[in-house]
Structures are given as C-alpha cells and as structure tokens.
C-alpha cells in the first residue's frame, strides 16, 4: 500500500538524518525491501542486559501504521516477556494498544523500557517469569546475565 511505503520512507530519512540522536538504537532498513528492518539495541544499564547488543527483526505489514510492526528478538535473551525460542515479544503496544503515532524508533525505545522493567505476570518465558514471581531476583539476574554474555556480547580478541 502506498501510504505505508511513504510513511516508512519518511522514517527511513528520519533515521538517516538523526543517526546520533539515540545512541542506544540503530535501525537498519533492508537494502531491497522497505518492509523489512533490523535494529540493534543496547541493553539498558543497571540491568542484566547491560553491555549486550540485541538484534531485533521487524516485519512491517502493508497496512502499517494502522497495524503494528511484527517485532522479535533475533538475539537470544532471557526475559519473562520474550519467547526464549522464537524471540516473540509480549508487549501491549505491539498488539491491542498499538497507535499509529508510534514509530519504529519509539517501538525500539519501548522494547528497551520493557527490558528494564519486566512484567512477570504476563510471561512468554515461564522459567524467567517464575523466578521473578517467586522473588528470586538473584536467580533471574544471573540467568539473564549469563545469556547476555553468551549471546549478546561481542567476542573480544
């Protein structure tokens, strides 16, 4: 649809112009398909994800921005609201609370906020949710930290 293409192109130009605006987010559009994007986001500080770089895949529907983009983690992450195998994200704004005023950039910011503030009561990853719900903060943090180190930290050397 023409409207979605125009809007994505607008976002693309915005991203190019303000590359430095948000150092925690890097959005990259597929070379040949404006409906496919990837993003690299930095794990928020003072969380077990700090120091990690997480890759997100965006698949954008033709009715965008009436419909939300489909986003999932490509990088493994241990988080109550992210499916451990598929990377699916459980976040209201990507579902029924979507508004066309969100952009790919602001969706990335919402995901970073979700990383810092997990919601154990709507878990996609029950192991992670149960650790938090039972109050085992230490257990959750060490698991999340381990996977950040394994999957999201660039190998040194």
């Amino acid at each position, binding site marked *: *649809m*023409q409207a979605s293409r125009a809007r994505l192109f*607008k*976002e693309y130009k915005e991203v190019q112009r*303000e590359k430095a605006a948000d150092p925690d987010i890097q959005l990259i559009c597929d070379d040949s398909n404006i409906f496919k994007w990837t993003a690299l986001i930095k794990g928020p500080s003072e969380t077990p994800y700090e120091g990690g770089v997480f890759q997100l895949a965006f698949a954008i529907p033709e009715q965008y921005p009436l419909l939300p983009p489909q986003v999932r983690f490509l990088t493994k992450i241990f988080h109550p609201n992210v499916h451990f*195998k598929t990377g699916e994200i459980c976040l209201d704004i990507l579902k029924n609370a979507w508004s*066309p005023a969100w952009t790919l950039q*602001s969706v990335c910011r919402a995901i970073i906020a979700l990383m810092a503030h997990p919601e154990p009561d*709507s878990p996609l990853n029950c192991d992670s949710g149960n650790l938090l719900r039972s109050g085992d903060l230490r257990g959750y943090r060490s698991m999340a930290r381990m996977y950040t180190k394994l999957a999201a930290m660039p190998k040194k050397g």
Partner: protein
Amino acid sequence: MDGGQSDANTSSATSIPTASSSYEDPNRCPICLEAIKQEAYLDRCFHTFCYCCIASWTRYVSRQHSRSVSSIKCPLCKRENSSIIYGLSGNSFQRHYVNEALGSSFLTRAHKVRWQCYDIEPGVMDHKFDPLSFWKSRRYLQENRFLQAWLRREIQTLLQEEDVEIIMYHVLGLIESFFKRQPKGHHLQPPEEKRGEFKKLVSDAARSFLSTRTDRFVDELELFLASGLTLDAYDKVCMEHLHVPASLVPSGGSAEDINVQDLRDPRLCFPHVDMD
C-alpha cells in the same frame, strides 16, 4: 515450559508514544509524519492530524469492533473522542462523528460508501469508466436520469447535511443547460476543450459550498456520467472498489471484477464512436 500468555494479558509500555525531537513538530501529522494536509482535530483533546489519516484510523478502529463504536482513543494521548472536526474556515467547520448515526441519521450505507470513496486515491476508477471517451462520443447529449439522485446523495455526503435541494438543483440546472447548449460549430469543438469548460463551470458553481472537496467532486461527477450506469449498478462498482483496494488486486484485475458492460443502462449507452 514456554507459553501460557494471551493477548489480553500483555505487558504494557508507557501509554504515550515517546516523541523524539523531530516528531514533536506541531505542523506534522503523527500518523503519516508529513506536513498536515486538511487539518483535522479530535473534539476533546484537540490533537491535530491530516483529515484522511485520522479518518482512516477511525475507520480501522471501528472495523475491529462488531458493534459500532461511538468514540476513539486519540493516537497520541489516548483520550476518548467522539468526533473529528475539520474544514475549518473562518467561523464554520465540519464535523464527522465516530458513530456517524449519532450526528446525522439520514446518512445511509450508500452515503458512507461514497464518503469512503473520497478517502481513497483519486483516479483508481478511471480505467473502468474512461472519462475522455464520454466527451469524445458526446454521450452527454443523452439525458442521464440518475444524475439528480446521484447529485443529491453526493452533496448530502460531502456536507453531512440532509437538506441540500437548493444546491442540488443549482448544480443540476447548470449541468443540464450546459449539455443542451449547442453553440454554432459545437461539433467541431475538441472534446478536451468541452471537458475543460464543463469542469470549470461546475467547480466555480460548487466551490462556495464544497470548498476543498470541490475538485474531487467534479472528478467524481464526471466519472459517474462517464460510467453510464444506473445508480444501483454504480454503487455496486464503488463498493467492489472499496472492498478490494486496487493495491491488493494484481494489475490484471481480479476474478470478482464486476463486468461493467453487463451493468450499463442500455438507454445511456452510445456505441463507442471516435469523433476525431
């Protein structure tokens, strides 16, 4: 071990999309991110959008509900709003209720279909009803007995007002006398010129009532005349177009494409003769 979630039970993000510097520009529509075209406001929170953008979002939201909805949440602040205010000029404005029946019950489904036609890109129907051939073959010499009903409904739709008889007769009278008028050497006049004259005449007459919608109205009028269809058949074609957006249909057309020839009123049909 995974799973157990439902859509109703998702984790929530901040309620307002966090705007970055450039997204805060008040002259920019938060939906298309372009400069606002046809400024429209929501009636409670007064956030501004392009008319088409907020109208298509409203339509999209209402389609998600089985019952008709009477309010929509503002995409920016989530406040419930019951109408869209637009067409501000001087001290007048127009209002489109989210639940249209709330404001104007005379509007039928056919009115709504026509209303939606104005939201889609112009020109999508041109390939169905070739407007130029209408002028070339001088089909306007044949009286169109559906024109009056079409005009009434179209003007009602655009003004969202029930009593439009004066405007309707004014425009109808102009059109009919234009078609009847046959100045000397009229058959030598190039069809493009005749067409231009017609469009100018109608838009000059209609502009004070229809303002920004005038040009599109004139194009739609021409398409209706060129279609040579009865009102019912014309509505059918319009509906077909709204349900199957052109972008979803491969350029070859779809199997459900209505065969326009089958629906033509034979009395409005002239053999296709090229006059040049």
